[in-house]
């Protein structure tokens, strides 16, 4: 299915190639480079590019294009999903997925790619199995390996491929048995000029870090499972049990994994946690404009709003800005016209604001574009939808594990439209 893979950096160099069938010349990437040149932004390169003899399917992550070469009909999502898995695996192994990290670990990368595909068809993509086959590099191991000449490849051959639970390796042992679950919700919203909500929805995930000995069988129940409208599960979750009882029952993989992602039904009204007040004026013919922006907390259930970051693409006519933030720092890039303001924590007693003037291109008319501002924030210890985990039970093992649940709300694509 997948013939070859080329990794291309943002300056258009191929820095790694891997072939699973016969070798495809790297000149096939010329078609990709053409498309790259035509695209105004790196994101605008089309994910599927037909060429006379091949098809190129690419994903862009961490400013690296992962370009897969396909020779015949295959569901494009199949390839895209796989490429994202590759990136996730690299990130898992090296902490970051950058050109430098890939080049530094080229042997591990090659070993991974070799295991992940056989003849272009995915073979082992579960991180638990891969880690048994190929040990992730650590600083200590690198040092030890250099001295002793030992290897990254697992000495013991894995059993996972044959286990009834393919996502969990056997013989897991911990001295401290712990299971942590993070409920993370992201709110996507578009707020219009007047401050009313155009769309708002909550997407959530439950990420788990489970370090438990043996073969634990966990069940996790919610106080209010009805909130979850549309869910997708890690393969370990028993779907029938969920259908019947609304309980998550599963034998977890070892280590970090995403247990569940969900969507909170749109029937429930979404509380918007922050508001924006703004007053931006461009006067026709004038070389000065006024800019004023204030943020405040709205419905946060008593929790503080943290890590607030505001960014906005100002119209092309803006030459420079002269603004004063009451807190945090702001930057304006006169070339890209990108304004960003790192606010930090919102203090409800003293609301953060950003005021000042903009210098506009002389003689330019009033811009007719609508600038939007993107807001990022975090609210600790609270899930906006009100989702609550009821209890976590373990069966199949005798010890008492340590259990922990954390809640967090983040802004996803949170946009406010500004008037002019």
């Amino acid at each position, binding site marked *: *299915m997948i013939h070859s893979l080329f990794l291309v950096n943002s300056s258009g160099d*191929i*820095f*790694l*190639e891997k072939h699973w*069938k016969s070798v495809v010349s790297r000149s096939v990437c010329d078609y990709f480079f053409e498309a790259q040149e035509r*695209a*105004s*932004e790196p*994101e*605008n390169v*089309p*994910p599927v590019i037909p060429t006379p003899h091949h*098809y190129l399917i*690419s*994903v*862009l*992550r961490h400013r690296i294009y992962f370009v897969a070469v*396909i*020779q*015949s*009909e295959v*569901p*494009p*999502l*199949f390839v*895209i*999903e*796989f*490429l*994202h898995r590759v990136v996730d695996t690299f990130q898992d192994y090296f902490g970051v997925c950058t050109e430098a990290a890939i080049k530094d670990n*080229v*042997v591990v*990368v*090659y070993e991974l790619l*070799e295991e992940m595909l*056989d*003849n272009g068809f995915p073979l082992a993509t579960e991180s638990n199995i891969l880690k048994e086959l190929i040990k992730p590099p650590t600083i200590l191991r690198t040092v030890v390996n250099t001295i002793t*000449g030992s*290897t990254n490849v*697992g000495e013991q*051959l894995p059993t996972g491929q*044959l*286990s*009834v639970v393919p996502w969990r390796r*056997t013989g897991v042992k911990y001295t401290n048995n712990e299971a942590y679950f993070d409920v993370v919700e992201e709110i996507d919203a*578009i707020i219009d000029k007047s401050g009313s909500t155009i769309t708002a929805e909550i997407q959530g995930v439950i990420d788990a870090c489970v370090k438990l000995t043996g073969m634990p069988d966990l069940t996790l129940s919610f106080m209010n499972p009805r909130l979850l409208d549309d*869910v997708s*599960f890690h*393969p370990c979750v028993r*779907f029938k049990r969920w259908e019947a009882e609304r309980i998550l029952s599963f034998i977890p993989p070892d280590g970090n994994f995403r247990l569940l*992602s969900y969507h909170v039904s749109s029937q429930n009204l979404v509380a918007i946690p922050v508001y924006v007040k703004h007053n931006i004026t461009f006067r026709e013919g004038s070389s000065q404009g006024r800019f004023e922006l204030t943020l405040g907390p709205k419905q946060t259930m008593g929790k503080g709003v943290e890590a607030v970051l505001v960014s906005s*693409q100002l119209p092309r006519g803006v030459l420079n800005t002269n603004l004063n933030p009451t807190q945090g720092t702001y930057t304006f890039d006169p070339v890209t016209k990108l304004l960003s303001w790192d606010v930090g924590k919102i203090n409800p007693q003293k609301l953060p604001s950003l005021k000042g003037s903009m210098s506009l291109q002389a003689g330019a*008319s009033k811009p*007719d*574009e*609508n600038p*939007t501002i993107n807001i990022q924030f975090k609210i600790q210890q609270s899930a906006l939808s009100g989702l609550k985990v009821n209890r976590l039970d373990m069966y199949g093992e005798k010890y008492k594990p340590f259990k922990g649940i954390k809640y967090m709300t983040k802004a996803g*694509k949170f*946009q406010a439209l500004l008037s002019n």
Partner: protein
Amino acid sequence: SLPNSLCIVHFLISFSPSRNEDLKEMLESNKESLKLEAMKRVVGLIAKGKNASELFPAVVKNVASKNIELKKLVYVYLVRYAEEQQDLALLSISTFQRALKDPNQLIRASALRVLSSIRVPIIVPIMMLAIKEAASDMSPYVRKTSAHAIQKLYSLDQDQKELLIEVIEKLLKDKSTLVAGSVVMAFEEVCPDRIDLIHKNYRKLCNLLVDVEEWGQVVIISMLTRYARTQFTSPWKEDGVFDEHNERAFYESDEEKTRDETEAKPYMMDPDHRLLLRNTKPLLQSRNTAVVMSVAQLYWHLAPKNEVSIVTKSLVRLLRSHREVQYIVLQNIATMSIQRKGMFEPYMKSFYVRSTDATHIKSLKLEILTSLANEANISTILREFQTYVKSQDKQFAAGTIQAIGRCATNISEVTDTCLNGLVLLLSNRDETVVAESVVVIRKLLQIQPTQHSDIIKHMAKLFDNITVPMARASILWLMGEYCERVPKIAPDVLRKMAKSFTSEEDIVKLQIVNLAAKLYLTNSKQTKLLTQYILNLGKYDQNYDIRDRTRFIRQLIVPNDKNGALSKYAHRILLAPKPAPVLESAYKDRDRYQLGTLSHTINTKASGYLELSDWPAVAPDQSVRNVEVIEPVKEWAPSLGKTGKSKPAKSSDDKFYSDSGEEEEEEEKGSGSSSSEDGSIQSILSVRLHILQNERVCPESGSDAESHVQKNSSQSSEESDKSSSQSEKSSSESDSEKKERKTKTPLQKKTVKPTAKDGYHTIMEHTFSYSHWSTLCVSLFTQLCPLSLAFPLQLSGPAFVPEKSHDLLHRMTGKGLSAQYQFPRQPCLYQPTMVSVQISLTNTTDHPLEQIHIGDRSPTGLNIHCFNTIECLEPEASVTVFIGIDFNDSTQAANFQLCTKEDHFSVSIQPAIGELLLPITMTELDFRKLLGMNESSATITMAAENMTSQPISRPVATVANLGMVPSSQDNVHRFAGKTASSGAVVLVTVELRESSTALITINTEKSVMGSMLLRDLKLALAQT
């Protein structure tokens, strides 16, 4: 720059011969670490796309290295360069051939992977042999690898197709979830048209689907979509009521559905069609976007119209995923939303554009919003579009204008509003916006030109300010087309154009010529000179299109001698009423390609695209999918069923007999008719008696039949050395059984024959020991079953039968009825998945107990084969009965009620884990091959005097019903068994070590059973 120059230096170094010399030296050194270092650098070169082929001889020498990482890297190198260095590559082949026989399944698999990846045509026969052998390997992982190898060999040598199809056919029958995806992939690549190979595996694939790994799911679903379109009739003719009815019918039972029912209904969904829809639905919740998409397309192409919308929510969820995923999903939604607006309308807001979206995402969202627009929501959508028009992304703004145009033509209520809005945009500062508006207005005006002459006038006024050629051309065309409505303005525009003709773009020039021609025909008085001037300019233009057009127009409109005939029609040619353009979606006919495919994305047929056929008018024979035995999901459990028999066999007798020789088929009918539905003990016994009589009367017939079967099996597996050796093995074994049987027959005859005549009760009075029973059962069982097995899992007799019996019902609680049970450790005759239990019932009262039978059981799904109701049990008498219980490989107690005429007593049987097993025999080699399965082990201390063979096998056999495996080492004892219900193999190794310790190792796929068994064994062995 510095890093760049460093790169170049590095590049030069890595290419200089001295450097490669250096690598060669390292590879040829004796030090493992140096070799490894060198290979790492070589892999670095390959990754960069540098040529490292000259190192081939030095690298290939290390192919047999003991170091796993070094070996892996050498494999990487080999696969990359073997095609270029074919002769040298052959040196490595023997290493792989050896590794193919390795006891470790992962080594076998990796050897096959590399061997099949070496694209050297000369080794095709070797690959073929290796694939065949691997296809019947014990390890599902190796079989998976062989499925992958099939495709590799096929792409190397297409002549192998027929042989490969045979292997595919074999692997399609595989019950392992690990193999399913890979073999279907091979099927799709090698022989997608051989739909007949799927029939028998269809239901199995549907049932396995949820447990297959996610990538395999995608491939299987797409294949099944194609399959379903050839086998089932369309569910789209009439929607509604009957469908629900059908769902119910399916749940009842397949067999209960009678023929008249199908005829009475106009459309009845095939239960298999329903099965596919039902089993794919949970996969909509998969985390893998490709799986969700493939289920969505399956529903789109196969489900009744009213069910398709269940996929909507999941598709909308995918829009939260990565940008590339969004792109593909939006494309598919775009196609769907044209035919089925209702599906996505409730989720309209999910398609609102965000400023951070990539351009191709934005235009897809616009496309979908436009398709979703209707009278009710148009105002909301237009308001949304107004914001988009103001977007900083001008390409997107232009797209929005086109979308507005489409809304205006589709929904006549808003045409005027849209047109007015567009006219306002004509004064926009951005010329792309203006140009696009002009083009769209032109199209709208064509639809209803009469009322809009003022808009045309307005556009003429704006003409001077518009610079985009397409827009200018559009305005000129409008002028020409409707010149009679703007008689004053049009000639003036032409005048201006005559002035600027030479500096215009080609597309504008063509329209100027057009305008001139039309004005000449309608208003020649004012424009004759102008027209002639323009035609002259056109005559000498640089572009030949324009010269051509000019010459054509001149001949057409200016009358002369030669062309008089044509110029008569000039007016009708040039000013014919033109049909209004239809503004429609680019996705209109996209659904001619299967959704979710590459071809759908690129809107052309990609190579290797497999057409989705139309529904057949009449469904092909449904019975082709019937399989005799519908078994639960298992890993390579032996299938007892004789395939190809259309009647599903539920009665145990049938199954029991299905593999016996031809001669006995006659007998079966006779006995089958006398046997009741439940398959009572009596009928089983009478069947047995038949065999025995048969044997007595003509001892050759049975063995003839047997050898006949053997001949068949060895013929079919002639190509494969391994399987033929297997059948040899089995034949030798059955020989010995035959002998055994012969020695036993006289004894059995004595005991059994009279009982059959006297009926049931008399058997029980003759309490013969079970050694007879057991030999009889085992010999029958082994004789009849294993010849059809894919793997030689020979059942053997129990090594030891514990005498211990357990209380089932105490006489005090049982009001005088007492019952005890024992595990006779025999394969259950009723159903192979059951464990047989022997129950002795004693009447301790002073009156006869009547109608003793088994009543309600729990859990309700518990499958128990009951004994026949005992009509009367005299005081002080006792009977022994056999029941079969399918414990489903768990130690969960089987609870049921033992009933007499007056009373019900709840009793329960709690099996020890060791009783859920059946002993099997295998060779030591096979045993070692299987050791890759899940392992649990423990070390125990035992007394020194017990360290000889006998005391070890004794306690093991007491704990668990396992067979001994011959061992070549004195201190290692091996035992093998399989679980009764799912047939999973259980291997136990006891290795005696120094200082009176022993290591117990258990290998089995059933990890829970493994650990429970280990616990029991630890207890038992520590005691001795």
